[in-house]
């Protein structure tokens, strides 16, 4: 395919390289750590320009800028969000006047204008809107997604696409994420090295506050806010309105409900800002951390494509970098090992220790919180029978009586169950081992 990007300023690709003086030194000169077989010069420029690369998620601004200035020419960006005023403290391609417009489109236009010769193709939508055919066209995917569900989805998709007889089906996945002064960058070679599902325990979900605490014995301002969010809204407004956490009227209502409850129990500390934070599960985010993590990801992409230095992520080498900046600067770069019982890239069922006296209902609830599962709407079956189906309604009704049964009545010790969840396209295999 011809790239029209390179001819914007009137010269064919590879000819006018004055702009890339600094980059070309690295592309043209071997270094002490480059492979002996490495060929300097033209092939590296070609690899960069040929590589069709996809960027996704909240780190998109940084990723697009970095890729464009790393010499990539065919960049795609996927983002479902529109620009919010609270993005402006870090997402530097957006201005006050852009608030409300789709992020992917505004970002693509800006970078195309600033860095001449790069082609950026935006898609405004969810990553889950696209299928394997779409992802198959790229050579590599970099994502800075803000939800673990989206990460797991793209991970499972890319792992599922690998055909061992066709090397082009293996798309390196580079993932970055931040929280406050901390972040992480990791490189995944689907099916070859530890995947996001293998590393799920690095993202343990926060323990939920028991419902009875919210309902009867709140002690913290957050308990009052969660009560307003989960209980009061359901009781008083659910019939008429669906809660929209971006609607200031809704947040104000929750805030006032929470405040009244806090006053009733003499609990200090409920604020509007805290209400917003709890209800929207806001994670603090700053420009500098995004810059660090996105650049760490793009640096790996650049090294993988050009072989100008060894990248993270090859089997047997480090593939994960953790960055902590709140107490001095500390990085921990290590190899996260692939797990044989990974439900996505392994072939063994994962052992799950369970109490045989637990009801199926409680077991299902626990699947949402277990760091190694984190499944919110699971459907469960064994080889022989259906344990519980979330849908269709007829099957749900049929399997509902099982919810009250104990696990020991439904499965035998060591039996394998298959769990699927509408958020994921794969089936998770667990082996239920009874606690003694």
């Amino acid at each position, binding site marked *: 395919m011809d790239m029209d990007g390179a001819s914007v300023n009137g010269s064919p690709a590879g000819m006018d390289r004055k*702009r890339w003086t600094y980059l070309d*030194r690295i592309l043209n000169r071997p270094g002490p*750590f480059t492979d002996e077989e490495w060929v300097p010069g033209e092939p590296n420029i070609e690899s960069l320009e040929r590589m069709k690369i996809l960027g996704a998620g909240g780190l998109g601004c940084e990723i697009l800028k970095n890729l464009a200035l790393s010499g990539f020419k065919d960049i795609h960006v996927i983002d479902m969000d529109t620009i919010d005023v*609270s993005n402006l403290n870090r997402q530097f391609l957006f201005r006050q006047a852009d608030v409300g417009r789709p992020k992917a489109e505004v970002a693509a236009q800006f970078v195309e204008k600033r860095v001449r010769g790069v082609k950026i193709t935006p898609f405004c939508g969810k990553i889950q809107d696209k299928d394997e055919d779409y992802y198959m066209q790229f050579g590599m995917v970099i994502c800075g997604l803000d939800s673990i569900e989206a990460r797991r989805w793209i991970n499972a998709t890319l792992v599922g696409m690998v055909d061992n007889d066709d090397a082009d089906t293996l798309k390196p996945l580079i993932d970055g994420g931040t929280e406050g002064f901390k972040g992480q960058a990791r490189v995944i070679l689907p099916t070859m090295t530890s995947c996001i599902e293998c590393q799920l325990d690095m993202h343990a979900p926060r323990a939920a506050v028991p419902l009875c605490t919210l309902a009867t014995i709140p*002690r913290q301002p957050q308990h009052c806010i969660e009560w307003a969010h989960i209980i009061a809204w359901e009781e008083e407004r659910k019939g008429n309105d669906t809660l929209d956490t971006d609607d200031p009227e809704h947040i104000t209502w929750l805030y006032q409900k929470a405040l009244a409850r806090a006053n009733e129990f003499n*609990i200090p500390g409920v604020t509007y800002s805290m209400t917003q934070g709890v209800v929207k599960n806001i994670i603090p985010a700053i420009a500098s951390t*995004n810059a660090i993590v996105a650049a760490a990801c793009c640096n790996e992409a650049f090294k993988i494509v050009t072989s100008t230095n060894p990248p993270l992520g090859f089997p047997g080498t480090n593939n994960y970098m953790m*960055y902590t900046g709140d107490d*001095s600067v500390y990085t921990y*770069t290590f190899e996260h090992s692939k797990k044989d019982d990974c439900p996505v890239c392994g072939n063994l069922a994962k052992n799950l220790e369970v109490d045989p006296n637990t009801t199926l209902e409680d077991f299902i609830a626990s699947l949402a919180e277990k760091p190694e599962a984190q499944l919110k709407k699971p459907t469960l079956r064994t080889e022989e029978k259906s344990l519980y189906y979330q849908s269709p309604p007829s099957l749900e009704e049929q399997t509902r009586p099982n919810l009250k049964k104990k696990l020991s009545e439904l499965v035998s010790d060591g039996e394998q169950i298959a769990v699927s969840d509408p958020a994921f396209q794969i089936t998770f295999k667990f082996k239920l081992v009874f606690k003694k």
Partner: protein
Amino acid sequence: MEEPLTETTPPILQDDEKKRKKYDRQLRLWAASGQQALEEAHVLLINSGPGVVGVETLKNLVLPGIGQFTILDSAEVTEADLGVNFFLEPDDVGKFRAERTCALLEELNPDVQGHYNTEPVEYFLTQSSDTHSLRPFTHILVTAPIVPELLADILTHCRATSKPLFYIHCVGFYSVFSVQLPSAFPIVDTHPDPTATTDLRLLTPWPALSALVEEKTRDLDSMNAHEHGHVPYVLIILHFLEVWKQTHDGQVPSNYREKSDFKELVRKGMRINNPEGGEENFEEAIAAVLKSLNPSTPSSAVKEVFDAEECKNLTHDSPHFWVIAHAVSDFYKAHNALPLPGSIPDMKAQSADYIQLQNVYKTKAREDVAEVTLTVRELAKQHGHLAQVDEKEIEAFCKNAAHIKLVRGRPINPAFPGQKLKWGQRAKAAVSALTNPDSLILIHIAFLAFDEFCASHDADALASAPRAPGSQDSEVEFDAEKMTGIANTIIDNLINEAGTRIEEPDYSDIGARVANYVQDIVRAGGGELHNIAALTGGMVAQEVIKVVTKQYVPVDNTCVFDGVGSRTEVLRLGADVSV
């Protein structure tokens, strides 16, 4: 209801609603006080070389709303700049780089004022005779390469005026930055890890707390299941400590074995004849025994503050921090404990009991603050202190007393060609890093050699700009050899200064490793890779924010980044303070 104690970082709910919305995600990290400090700062960037890392740093400061920035850079935009600097446009070639980058950075945030100056550094520094030209700025960023004499001037000025300075290198896949902080840089709001144990004083309860224990656990045995299962664990532990003391000569459990026995004692108090087979509050108590039954001795960081000359010998113009530190140190001497922080973790309890317990802690904390405040006022009178120390400041100090930190800024040593670098007290530590194969100190040394090389090679006959090694294709190998020679001399001098020897094969191994780093740096010819500049600009901006807001803990004092292994190392280096 009583007024709650203010948090260390007071929550923001103030004037400008629009600003609050825009900065929401960062105010959750550094609050209104941090934001205000940012808005009062004026950062100067003395830019050179390809000039990307400095501009990327500024980008990460403009976005969160730094007050003002100034770019000092006499370079004109070249084609090569366009391939690496995002804050330039294709039509800018030939214009002043400072002017254009300033304009495009300013676009990012209308709250920020940008300025630029296109004078050469040497002219800028010498143009005014009585007032130093660096005076208007609160924080200085300098990017390499820069003539060492000029760097030395800037460093001296910053040292003399206690102005934080950041000296940054970024070439190819590597970067290093050093932070020169004032000789005393105290931090109250260090934002300790939320999982760090709060000081509950379980071994030394005060009368009001003991009274509450007595009141709430008196009828432990006759309580109904609901009440028994909701006694707060703090009270459970305190209750059973009294039980324990009766059979242990009034002593509390002090070692691991005794604590394990104590755990058993608590476990026996738990009711298990219920459907759950236990009680959550008792489980919480058992889990807390090992980490909560420790005498509350202050950390070495706190002792360092108490032992500091500035703390012991107050003067009429001692900064508030030291006056409060002195008062808190007096408090510690009198009570053998720091002021109580006053917060308690969440725990299984009835709402009213929990709030009552919380108030007992808060009341005690408030009393401690009052006592410290009294001392502060007396000290101020004694030493003729003019400025009144704000009560909020004293409260914040007391609340975080266990986590305060003092960073002793050490001067950055510029590398002059042909002169021995002085490692001083840090020589021994630096030498041991040399032989550690995981240490990145050799990258730092390669950059010292880079500075020496630049200082002794001019880009043109006018001697107006230094020439970076590897900038000509034909001289890459020659430059690498020369720079490796410089690096080896630096290493030899360091080993000599430390008064030690490194035996073979370690010595040769160090030589081979530093030669690799030098070669990979020379390969870039002084050029920046955008990713490495962006990443380093992110790290430096984090540090600037920490130093400006005096929150969190800054790098002390040199941070190395290796873009091949994707990892960092912080080295404590810098010259001794001359008396």
